[in-house]
């Protein structure tokens, strides 16, 4: 490589597209495996629909006067899938590999590359089959919205601003989850191994899968405060889903303050994850001899 090329900034978009293409080529080499993985995650998701279908046979909504009826909640669930599938497709496999690279010393080779290390570590592989749940989520969204257009109180209306805001807040949700994951993965520099931390990830994000109203009672308030303001996983799905599903015809007083706070939380989360990541690189000692 000559000096001229080395001093140039790499084209991040092109690098990412190359990663995405390579991953797709690799996935297509094992096509049956790819299909099985897609079917597996789809069937898991469909089983969840089954569960809530049964729940809504017994109750009109989740929480009295919360507005989370069957199809509003299906929008919530679809949003969970959409956000989680993006995280699982783009960041999860890389995050797992990052811990492994720290343990084995493979990170040396990444540090040597003339490109931002966090970018390289975070986006090297794309797990395409995870995006099957993205499509399923989209399907469920369309189906639920179609049902909500006939909602007796405040029928659902499509406006460009709703669609735009939904996309923005889904992106915020992805950013918050990505940051949390990066922070957890970075800790393997200090801990050596972090299997339990991955369990921790699943248990924490588990809180984000339900409307936040259910926690706002009894000692759930503590959970609500912690998972809204300290580790903001409750914002991830709740805010975009609320914007799209409009439970209670969307007239709650805390809607906009919460939406503003979500933007703030997403930016702060990314900055913190960047800081933690760089601290972890400083603490990294190669494992090779």
């Amino acid at each position: 490589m000559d000096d001229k090329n080395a001093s140039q900034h790499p084209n991040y978009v092109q690098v990412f597209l190359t990663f995405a293409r390579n991953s797709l080529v690799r996935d297509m080499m094992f096509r049956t495996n790819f299909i099985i993985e897609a079917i597996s995650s789809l069937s898991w998701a469909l089983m969840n629909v089954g569960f809530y279908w049964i729940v809504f046979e017994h109750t009109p909504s989740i929480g009295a006067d919360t507005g989370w009826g069957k199809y509003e909640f299906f929008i919530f669930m679809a949003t969970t899938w959409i956000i989680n599938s993006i995280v699982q497709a783009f960041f999860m496999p890389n995050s797992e590999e990052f811990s492994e690279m720290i343990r084995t010393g493979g990170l040396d080779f990444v540090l040597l590359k003339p490109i931002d290390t966090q970018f390289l570590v975070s986006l090297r592989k794309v797990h395409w089959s995870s995006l099957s749940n993205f499509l399923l989520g989209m399907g469920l969204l369309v189906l639920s919205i179609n049902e909500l257009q006939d909602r007796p109180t405040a029928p659902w209306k499509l406006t460009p601003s709703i669609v735009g805001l939904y996309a923005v807040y889904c992106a915020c949700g992805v950013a918050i989850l990505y940051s949390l994951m990066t922070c957890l993965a970075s800790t393997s520099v200090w801990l050596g191994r972090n299997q339990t931390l991955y369990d921790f990830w699943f248990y924490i994000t588990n809180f984000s899968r339900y409307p936040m109203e259910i926690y706002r009672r009894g000692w759930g308030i503590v959970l609500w405060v912690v998972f809204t303001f300290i580790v903001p996983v409750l914002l991830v799905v709740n805010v975009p889903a609320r914007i799209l599903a409009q439970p209670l015809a969307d007239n709650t007083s805390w809607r906009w303050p919460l939406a503003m706070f979500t933007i703030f939380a997403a930016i702060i989360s990314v900055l913190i994850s960047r800081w933690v990541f760089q601290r972890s690189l400083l603490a990294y000692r190669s494992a090779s001899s």
Partner: protein
Amino acid sequence: MIAWTVRTLPQRASTWWTIYRIALEERMAYRGDFALGTLMRFLPIVTQIFLWWAIFDAAAAATGKSHLAGYSFHDMVAYYLLSMLGRAFSSMPGLASTVARQIREGEIKKYLVQPIDMIGFMLLARMAHKSAYYAIACGPFALVFYLCGDYFPAWPTVEVGLAFLLSLVFAFLLGFFLDLCIGLIGFWFLEVSSLLFIYMLLNFFLSGHMFPLDLLPVGWRGAVDYLPFRYLAYFPAAIYLGKVPSSQLWQELGVEALWLVGMIFIARYLYARGVRRYSGYGG
């Protein structure tokens, strides 16, 4: 042809004891991680409590009913905790995949050349693993059950208590042989991971781990009752909560025992047929 020496019962018992002890010690090596992991496994219960609290509230506000399919909110929380206890007995992490891997990689031939029965060996090892698990998990379990004590109904009668304990032991054995059979299919397919995934999925849904089976619509409920999965999580919890009428209690346990005997036969049959099919090369 291998010459099998006839061994007396004390000799066999001594072999069993050795297998059990080795597996136990192996498991106790990581007890700290274990205890923490067990405690964390209760975290989803927290969200379940709030979810069902909200569901019961909404149902009560709409229909005035405080029970869903015969469950009060407290019953529901107690059900989830008890079904976790049932799963602690019936779930067999890694069993089917280990069996399939041993078949695929030829490790299984150690059972063919040594005077050890594979199924017996695996059962003993699993009993040791479970013992180690209970020795450590009883702390977190006791803590969580104590904290959630208010959700539980009064202590059951001695008869129900005995049936409950027996259903847990049966759940362990039935879970073991069901998983084993999936693993033994590896003699024919080599790669069983996708089959295993489907099995796990069905198991999660139909065992009552995800929700009490009483919530299912009537037609479905009837079908699920004819499957063995319900004994793995739903049945012990239902016994404890008094959902199984005492007139049917022992009859139902008898049906479970029949399932168990059936699965043992199937596992033995699959193993015998599989070994005949199996061919190993190299050292």
